[in-house]
């Protein structure tokens, strides 16, 4: 490290994005300084107590395959885990786990403290110091200045954060935690636009005050299901059920009768846009008035706490109304509310300000990740964090940024969606956003990303060797499946001469039916079965990817002046100037670009003395 720097990489924020960013940079060899308001609140789970879920679970697997931490953290602290979508197909199967919240945060802090190149400082960053377009340092509210060539901002909802509950409102990043007001102004001073988004959290209640006998239980998996390829399958503690109840007309009436006290409706205080996939109970009652009931999910928040999360019940109505509403739920007649729900409104910077490396276009060396970019969700934050951390480190090392393709990972879909389309509500990952999802599976995240993770120095050698062994076993088992005959062990009256692969192609044949013939253990046999069952679909998808790849590889020069290209439609000129897509493929995905615009652009680019073609991420 040069004498002029306090660290190679500074990470501002200690949430899921900040922690993955810091660990990635440090593991890639950079001295990394994490600056956070309260070092005792690293990686809290301020909203729902769960990690994973549809599409999010795949993100966690990808983070793990690259060498990130989220998967191992949840494996060490889960109190309920199960597969979602098992019957709907291997391409959409995903893990979701409930976490012991306190344990999760503790585990994250332990990992951070154990990482030799990570240093933690307490402070509120108020200013970014930029010289000649390059980031130089950050300055804290108390006047301390920390210098580094790469700075990662992962400030979550703290930027200009304001919370609302009924008539009550205060400036805060989270309930009881001070927001970052100066930083928001400072970013605007550097020319970054900001916009308001909104999210919310439901009330927490005391487990002891609930009558679970009238609720329907969701049982956890009887066998351990690790997120991480690197975790030993075992339960970290007792596994607990979750519960589901339903709202009734009594609940809805309370909501309607008190809408005039809602900061969202009657009071009209909140202007930020909330996520459609995570509506408040007010929204549900108003917008889906014809639904007689809505589901409410009752989820434990830990082994050593009675605090219980009331999912699906996010609200910013006044606390007294919240309590009344809770009492209308079955089993909640004697409920003790530990903490009321609230809404939070915060600033985000439109992610179209970013390169796909998450470096900002305005300030070199400055990286943004997490909710600051307009996303929501722990997994989305962590995925951006690891990418920002990797590229912050690569910049320090003088290397090209690592880029992720839509066809290779959900991380790639996330990045491409953010930087080419921007957001108009808090962005959540959904399987339907991934057009190549049959390729982006829970089971094959390691095949897709572990070689990259190792090549850039993030995934340790011993983990990579494990991966290589796993891959070899998979390949030889696959080869065996194509030649080995069922023989005497043929299941369901299938002929003995049939190959294992041919049998597996039949939907009714499961991997367990042929595991013996295959001579493969449980997780391996299942992977073989998935590969074979999906073969045709995967091939069709790969053909589509190949077809589209030419446009993805045609890079658009940074200095292209779209406004001067008269053949482009006005809308295309405006959008291209605003979003500055990296490739022709990215340009074609910007809403409003017509095929003619793309064709014109392709002609222009090639006129510019031959298009540049991107190379795969350098090893």
């Amino acid at each position, binding site marked *: 490290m040069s004498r002029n720097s306090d660290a190679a990489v500074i990470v501002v924020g200690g949430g899921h994005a900040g922690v993955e960013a810091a660990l990635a940079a440090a593991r890639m060899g950079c001295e990394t300084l994490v600056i956070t308001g309260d070092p005792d609140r690293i990686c809290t789970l301020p909203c729902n107590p769960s990690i994973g879920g*549809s*599409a999010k679970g795949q993100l966690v697997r990808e983070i793990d395959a690259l060498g990130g931490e989220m998967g191992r953290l949840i494996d060490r602290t889960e109190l309920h885990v199960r597969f*979602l*979508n098992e*019957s*709907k*197909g*291997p*391409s*959409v199967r995903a893990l979701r786990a409930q976490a012991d919240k306190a344990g999760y945060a503790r585990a994250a802090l332990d990992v951070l403290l154990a990482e030799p190149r990570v240093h933690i400082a307490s402070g509120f960053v108020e200013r970014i110091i930029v010289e000649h377009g390059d980031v130089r340092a950050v300055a804290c509210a108390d006047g301390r200045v920390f210098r580094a060539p790469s700075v990662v901002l992962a400030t979550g909802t703290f930027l200009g954060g304001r919370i609302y509950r009924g008539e009550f409102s205060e400036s805060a990043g989270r309930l009881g935690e001070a927001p970052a007001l100066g930083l928001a102004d400072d970013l605007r001073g550097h020319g970054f636009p900001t916009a308001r988004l909104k999210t919310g959290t439901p009330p927490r209640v005391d487990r002891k005050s609930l009558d679970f006998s009238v609720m329907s239980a969701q049982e956890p998996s009887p066998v351990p299901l690790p997120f991480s390829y690197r975790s030993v399958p075992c339960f970290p503690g007792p596994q607990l059920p979750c519960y589901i109840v339903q709202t009734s007309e009594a609940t809805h009436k309370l909501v309607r009768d008190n809408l005039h006290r809602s900061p969202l409706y009657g009071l009209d205080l909140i202007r930020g846009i909330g*996520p*459609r*996939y*995570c*509506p408040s109970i007010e929204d*549900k009652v108003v*917008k*889906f008035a014809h*639904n007689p009931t*809505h*589901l409410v*999910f009752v989820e434990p928040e830990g082994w050593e706490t009675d605090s219980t999360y009331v*999912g*699906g*019940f*996010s609200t910013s109505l006044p606390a007294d109304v919240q309590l009344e509403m809770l009492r209308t739920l079955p089993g909640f007649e004697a409920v003790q509310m530990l903490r009321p729900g609230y809404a939070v409104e915060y600033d985000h910077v439109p992610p179209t300000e970013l390169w796909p490396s998450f470096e900002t276009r305005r300030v070199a060396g400055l990286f943004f990740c997490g909710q600051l970019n307009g996303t929501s969700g722990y997994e989305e934050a962590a995925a951006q964090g690891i990418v920002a951390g990797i590229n912050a480190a690569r910049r320090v090392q003088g290397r090209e940024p690592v880029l992720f393709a839509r066809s290779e990972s959900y991380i790639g879909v996330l990045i491409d969606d953010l930087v080419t389309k921007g957001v108009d509500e808090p962005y959540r990952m*959904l*399987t*339907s*956003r991934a*057009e190549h*999802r*049959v390729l982006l599976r829970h089971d094959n995240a390691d095949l897709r990303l572990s070689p990259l993770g190792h090549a850039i120095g993030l995934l340790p050698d011993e983990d990579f060797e494990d991966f290589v062994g796993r891959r070899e076993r998979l390949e030889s088992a696959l080869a065996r499946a194509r030649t080995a005959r069922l023989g005497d062990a043929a299941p369901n009256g299938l002929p003995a001469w049939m190959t294992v692969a041919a049998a597996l192609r*039949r*939907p*009714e044949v499961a991997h367990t039916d042929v595991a013996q013939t295959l001579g493969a253990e449980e997780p391996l046999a299942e992977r073989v079965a998935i590969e074979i*069952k*999906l073969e045709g*679909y995967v091939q*069709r*998808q790969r053909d589509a990817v*190949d*077809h589209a*790849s*030419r446009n993805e590889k045609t890079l658009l020069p940074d200095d292209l002046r779209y406004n001067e290209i*008269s*053949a482009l*439609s006005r809308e295309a000129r405006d959008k291209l100037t605003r979003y500055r897509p990296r490739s022709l493929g990215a340009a074609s995905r910007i*809403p409003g670009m*017509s*095929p*003619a*615009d793309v*064709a*014109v652009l*392709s*002609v*222009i680019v*090639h*006129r510019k003395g031959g298009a540049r073609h991107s190379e795969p991420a350098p090893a």
Partner: protein
Amino acid sequence: MSDTIAAVATPPGRGAIAIVRASGPAARFIANRVFSSRRKLRERVATTGHVLDASGARIDQGLALLFLAPRSVTGEDVLELHVHGSPAVSREVLTSVLAAGARLAGPGEFTRRAFLAGKMDLSAAEAVADLIEAEHRSAARAAAARLSGGLAKTVERLRSQLSAVLEELAASIDFPDEVPSPDPPTLEQRLHAVMQELDALARSREHGRLVREGVGVALVGAPNAGKSSLLNALLGSERALVSELAGTTRDTLEETLSLGDVVARVIDTAGIRHVSDGASVVEPPSHALLEAAGIARARAALEQARIALVVVDASVPLSRDADAIIAETRGRERVLFYNKADLGRIAYDARAESERDACLGSVFCDEDVADVKERLRSIAVGSETIDVARPMLAAGWQLDAVLEGRRGVSRALDTLRAGAPVDLTSGDLTTAFQALGMLSGRDASEALLDSIFSRFCIGK
């Protein structure tokens, strides 16, 4: 990796010659597939031979020219096929080239490739860009105009049915606790209904083409069977409306005959023109000449037409020529007319079992002639009447889009019927949805999510 594009390079309509051009790495391969000649194709040497269809049957006689990269108009390997300038021929040739591995070129695509290959002046870049834009916009306008009626509504309805299925799938996958998974048998029914409608649309393309281009009818028969008389009788009072399209083909004459809602293009081998000596001879040539060339000519005419109109003299025993021509048309769409019933019916009565489809009559009897016409019409159109107001696909690319949509739905149905998990249908259904989107000019991706959130109350 670049693909190979193809299109008819000459202006639409009838000219003496049509050029079908293919450009791209597969051009040479395509040449070997669709063109047969005695001499091997050499670069930049015009070679005569036959253009073949996908089954290897001859479509037309013509010239092939091969230009190898980079010495070609696009800088890629280019194949040019020069064939007779009838729309039917050039369409068949293009179909064959597409079947051999090319895809239909988009608007301005040849020009664009030419430019990219540096075959055009750099200063022309903006002009090229303008051209592409103009072509695209006018194509889009034209498409919108064509789609403004019932077709657009039909396509939108089918799209919204597919979209509903995709939404339900996506919502049940992304919010499994809240939205139940669609039930496979019901899904299957819904998709099946969509597929039937797509089938009907694909058939409508055939109707649209019939209305616009007419159906090809080859009028064949031994000398003196009464081909010319039949043609004259068929044309009857419409004679004045008939345009004689001399020169459209080299050895036959085309007459246009109205069959009510569709038009037949009758390729008349009766009036053979001898161009070799420069003089036109409209009278049938001598019997000896026909023995040698009659069958070959009938065959050539039959290759260009969909329907065979075979005329046989019923009043005398079957001649060798007549027998050969009957044999040639057996098993294909034909009207077999035993003429001269007023003189006798020996040949008709002695006809073989396989010629049961024949009809007996006389060109001098109006009812018999009307019967021949009705038979032609019912073969061309089938039992349905063509309702011009019903949605019809007007262009090949529209049919491509419908067929791609159909393929997607059909694969999704296969997946469901095999009992595979429902999500495996999403890829194919999305493809189908997008293909239909091309047809109505709508982009799909964003609309889907909006729709999901308006239909389902989800989230916790």
